């Protein structure tokens, strides 16, 4: 196939150079690049420098799937407005009456409105109406010009010069139409019905029984913390072990924060000491061997309570490490415990702490551990220099930390609701316009909605 079309040095003028005898001598030329994807309205103009012999010039658009030996509009997938008869063509050779013919010195414009999926033409700056509707915009579309008789010569204007037609006005109307369409949208679906108005936490957890369980637990954990407030009776104590148990079951990610877990476990130990305060720990250490093999057994004979406490400290710190996967939530209700059992739990707990953290390379952890255990060095910890550790108020900042950690795992929003909606809208507009949604391509969040 010979080209018959000579493109000028300016890359936008085209002249027919073929024999121009019959329809098979027709040739079509497309622009090098298709109309860009994110486009609401596309428009270009063609100046007819010469109508040549018969003015069989077709201006229009085309997919790139059809042949280049046809005028635009003759084949399916192409659309054209022809100069000789003023007819418009789409996928057939006869066309239908559309506008006036065009000839030398006329300027013909061709536009496609992706919102309406329609193609229109202009002649010498006048709008001729929509020629085609329901255009298949799913495939790339190219500006296309066809000629078939000798001497035909055109110059295309892709916007490098001002257009004859006021395309700005057309675009601004299309823009207004798009906005009007959006402003008609109901937001009813985005507002929860009164029946399912729940707090965010409940809503999030309403997904299933497991989630319900979680919601229950986080509330229970919160209650556990409030119980630690000083206003509560002295017997009310922060039940950190069971809070840890709940976390282990429902928010295992929270327990990955080792520093937090360490602090919680130290606090639990302190709570045990608080519970045992008033008993002489040494008096309560059972004389049988069941305490643990680590216990030397000889310390029971010591009368001096201060020494005894130190001894029990030794009982803890000298214990060999017993590596085991810690299961939390095993400590029974402290209030119902007899002193001996409480002290045994206390010592076991301390021993486990020592086993798990005693060899920690982290100096802060080791220091914290020593600090915590030092409570045992005093016969009456409540009257000791470190009695501040026993202050129930000391639980509060820890409770805050846990709350924050839980919220963080709840996929809590990292941005404000407003920003989230803004970003969603902008991302959707970009996505839609890349999918040839003309209305979406015409609007933007920052210029139209701020």
């Amino acid at each position, binding site marked *: 196939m010979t080209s018959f079309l000579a493109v000028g040095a300016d890359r936008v003028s085209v002249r027919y150079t073929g024999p121009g005898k019959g329809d098979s001598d027709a040739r079509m030329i497309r622009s090098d690049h298709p109309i860009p994807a994110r486009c609401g309205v596309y428009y270009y103009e063609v100046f007819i420098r010469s109508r040549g012999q018969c003015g069989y010039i077709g201006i229009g658009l085309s997919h790139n799937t059809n042949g280049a030996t046809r005028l635009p509009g003759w084949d399916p997938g192409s659309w054209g407005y022809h100069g000789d008869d003023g007819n418009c063509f789409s996928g057939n050779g006869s066309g239908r009456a559309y506008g006036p013919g065009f000839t030398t010195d006329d300027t013909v414009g061709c536009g496609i409105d992706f919102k309406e999926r329609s193609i229109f033409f202009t002649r010498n700056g006048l709008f001729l109406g929509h020629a085609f509707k329901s255009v298949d915009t799913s495939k790339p579309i190219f500006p296309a010009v066809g000629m078939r008789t000798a001497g035909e010569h055109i110059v295309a204007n892709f916007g490098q010069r001002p257009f004859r037609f006021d395309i700005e006005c057309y675009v601004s109307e299309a823009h207004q139409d798009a906005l009007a369409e959006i402003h008609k949208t109901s937001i009813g679906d*985005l507002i929860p019905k009164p029946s399912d108005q729940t707090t965010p936490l409940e809503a999030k957890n309403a997904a299933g029984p497991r989630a319900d369980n979680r919601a229950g637990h986080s509330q229970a954990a919160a209650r556990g913390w409030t119980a630690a407030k000083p206003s509560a009776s002295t017997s009310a104590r922060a039940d950190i072990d069971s809070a840890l148990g709940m976390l282990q079951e429902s928010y295992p990610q929270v327990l990955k924060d080792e520093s937090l877990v360490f602090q919680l476990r130290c606090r639990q130990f302190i709570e045990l000491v608080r519970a045992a305060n008033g008993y002489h720990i040494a008096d309560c250490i059972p004389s049988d061997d069941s305490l643990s093999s680590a216990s030397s057994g000889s310390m029971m004979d010591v009368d001096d309570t201060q020494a005894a406490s130190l001894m029990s400290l030794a009982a803890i710190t000298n214990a060999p490490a017993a590596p085991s996967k810690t299961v939390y939530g095993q400590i029974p209700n402290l209030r119902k415990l007899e002193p001996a059992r409480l002290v045994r739990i206390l010592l076991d707990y301390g021993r486990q702490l020592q086993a798990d953290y005693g060899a920690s390379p982290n100096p802060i952890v080791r220091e914290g551990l020593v600090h915590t255990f030092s409570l045992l060095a005093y016969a009456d910890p409540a009257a000791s220099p470190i009695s501040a550790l026993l202050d129930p108020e000391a639980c509060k900042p820890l409770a805050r930390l846990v709350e924050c950690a839980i919220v963080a795992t709840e996929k809590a929003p990292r941005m404000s609701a407003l*920003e989230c909606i803004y*970003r969603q809208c902008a991302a959707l507009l970009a996505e*839609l316009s890349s999918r040839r949604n003309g209305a979406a391509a015409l609007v933007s969040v*920052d210029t139209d909605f701020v």
Partner: protein
Amino acid sequence: MTSASSSSKQTISLEEWECKMAEVPIAKSDLNQLIMNYLIIEGYKDAAEKFSEESGLQTQVDLGSIEERMQIRYAVQSGDIRLAIERVNDLNPDLLETDARLYFRLQQQHLIELIRQGRATEALEFAQEELAPHGAEHPELLRELERTMALLAFDRQDSPVAELLEFGQRQRTANELNAALLAAHSQPREPKLPALLQLLAWTQAQLDDKARYPRINSIVNPVLEEPADKT
């Protein structure tokens, strides 16, 4: 969404979508502007002042005019139409003269208030002297007047026009007046935030036809919901 059409739909994963969202260029000042716009139009003067101060956002609006606008709105909402009209005339002497419809609305509200208080004779006189003359120029207003007068003919509970006595009617009148005052000061009548929500609803509906993607299903708690698995 039918399963037949959805089977061919592309699914955009949460990770992929979050990346797209993160790429959105966003100016903090744009968000602040949206909030400021809402505060001003809805008349939260103190909040607007504070927000302007804290966000460093300059506003061309005379914040004092917000207060006057709010006092007018409050007067209408509490049924004191005379006071509202007085204040409107202080703030903007031309408004009610040029906007006959708006003026009628206020007069109608005053009539409703008279009827509500059981001052039937006064209401009749007021309707005949103040309202009926406008009817000749504006037939649609005359119909409204007739509707209002029907309030006198019925027991309150069974009246077909009982809605006129509801608080919502005062609210509608107050909104109309507020919008007119804003327009008179070349302020937008509507805050922009609701339009952003409409944009959200529209864009999501548009993409629903083409793809599965993480949606925001509630503006009360806007979180991305993962696209449902193909079934």
